[in-house]
């Protein structure tokens, strides 16, 4: 999805919101507009997140994968090394539950971490990503992925007229 991204810095959420509205009026699809900011902005204040958040399912998958691994570890130990201890049965349930539970939680945590990273699009060190460190001074970087020079020009106009600073087209991924 590489292409030209028009970016503009705004020093207030009101201006950014106005620019966002102008972009949407171009028209530009909701999923082509996003913001970069140092604090999370409420959804819909400038841009709206249209992609459903599905990765919590991976947490569930991780949990079950972990549970299976834990169960396999516990049962495998009993069955592969069937040493009688304490005069008790070879397979014992409560320790199996504990091990299963702990490994399941581990699976869920690791699953969430990996899925979270993927979903957030982190760890893309080789791709050129749109960024402007000035957001750390409280600015909001409004980004709009445009197709074609015409759309780019109109988008830049819209941003500039909404009070954007340093409005420019950029090559890179969002």
């Amino acid at each position, binding site marked *: 999805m590489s292409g030209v991204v028009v970016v503009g810095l705004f020093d*207030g*959420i*009101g201006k950014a919101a106005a620019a966002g509205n102008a972009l949407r009026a171009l028209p530009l699809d909701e999923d082509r507009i*996003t*913001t*970069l*900011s*140092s*604090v*999370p*902005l*409420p*959804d819909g204040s*400038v*841009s709206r*997140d249209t992609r459903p*958040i599905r*990765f*919590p*399912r991976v*947490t*569930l998958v991780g*949990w079950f994968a972990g549970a299976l691994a*834990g169960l396999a*570890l516990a049962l495998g*130990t009993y069955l*592969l*090394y069937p040493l009688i*201890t*304490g005069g008790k049965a070879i397979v*014992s349930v409560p*320790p199996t539950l*504990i*091990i299963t539970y*702990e*490994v399941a*939680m*581990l699976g*869920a*945590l690791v699953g*969430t*971490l990996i*899925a*979270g990273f993927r*979903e*957030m*699009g*982190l*760890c893309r*060190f080789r791709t050129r*990503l*749109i*960024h402007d*460190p000035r*957001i*750390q*001074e*409280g600015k909001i970087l409004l*980004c709009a992925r445009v197709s074609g020079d015409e759309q780019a020009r109109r988008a830049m106009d819209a941003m500039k007229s909404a009070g954007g600073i340093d409005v420019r087209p950029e090559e890179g991924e*969002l």
Partner: protein
Amino acid sequence: MNGSDHLSRTDPGALYRELSRSNLPATRRWYAVTGLLLLVTLWGVGCFVYMMMTGMGVTGLNRPVMWGALIASFVFWIGLSHSGTLISAILRLTNATWRAPILRGAEAMTVFALMVGGLFPLIHIGRNWRFYYMLPYPNSRQLWPNLRSPLMWDAVAINTYLIGSLTFLYFGMIPDLAIARDHATGWRKKFYTVLALGFRGSHNEWRRYHVASTIFAILIIPVAVSVHSIVGWDFAMAKVPGWHSTIFAPYFVTGAIFSGLAGVVLVMAVLRKVYRLENALTTVQFENLGKLLCTMSLLWGYFYFSEFLTVWYNRNPEEWEVYRSYGGHFLPLWLSMVVCNFVVPFPLLCMRRVRRSIPALCFVSFLVIVGMYAERFLIVVTSLARRNDPFIWHNYFPTWVEFSILAGALAMFLLLYAVFAKLFPIMAVSDIQERLFQATDRVVGGTTVESIARPEASVEGGHG
């Protein structure tokens, strides 16, 4: 919000500079302090190596006191690790607004306390160089761990908790690392660039970041509870009078949170003082921690009383001998436990003046730390020293080797913390920014109060 054109009421750049003072280039004093800590750590390591080469006999352990100060410290440090992540997770979930300044420090405490605490079982085993016998991997010796052993439960649980806490700490730190990256120059720039993993603050990132944080917070709470429950079960599973008690799991968790809170107070006070974070860490945070501490003191007192009552009423001779020794050989220890954990802290913490005075709160927290260490020591040692067969009773006192290792562990914890604070954002800058962003002053009648605007609760689904 409110039509304000400012993201926040303070200059974010200035805010970052204020909160990241710990990351300033190291001063001579910093080198002196960490150097000293390093020396003490190395001394502890040296004593451990000496113990390993000579034998466990250099400790004060004996039959029947086969576990001593090292295991008490294990329980203590694992307990200390509890508040950080647990509190942070609970506060995150409940959206407590005052939480932001203490999150990072508390989470870091969890990780380092776990790292230090997790070393103790390895230090204490008789053949440390064979610790890998406890790892499940195929080998020609036909060795495999016995998962019936509570020690294995412990190993698995602590492992999960350590990984979870590290994840929690790191994940929560990513936006701050991004901020740091954008401010940094030189090698730090590269360092933070790698660690921030390309986080930029896009709307999608923020949204998913919040969801993932919430899931982590949800996941880590049961893990934290289970870890200290299992540490409690290490003891409760044993046929040792004084250990074999059903109340141990919740009792240990309570004690862990209690000591952890005291640890958080101390760490926060030190951070506040050393890095001049008075603006971020205000009396609000301390007072709230004080209130929690007061609750936990009461809760601890309740649990201890419950435990005591059952044994006292039952007068099972085997268990009663353990309690009798509280009035005998172990009286000083028992007194310090009760006084430092309940008798002094509870009434003091009921006073607003004490809660709002940072030195007073630190004093109480220190007492609690001492009291909780005494409690761990008492649980581990006394029960063993008064075993079922009275003929072989034997008392125990740690030797210089054990004291050195304990000192080394404390130094290691502080060293890790000092280095961490030097390299990483010790204040959750983005959380503080977020809070300031959401806050506004509102006139209500004749006064002006801070008002918080909350984004809609947009988290869908937790974990399964």
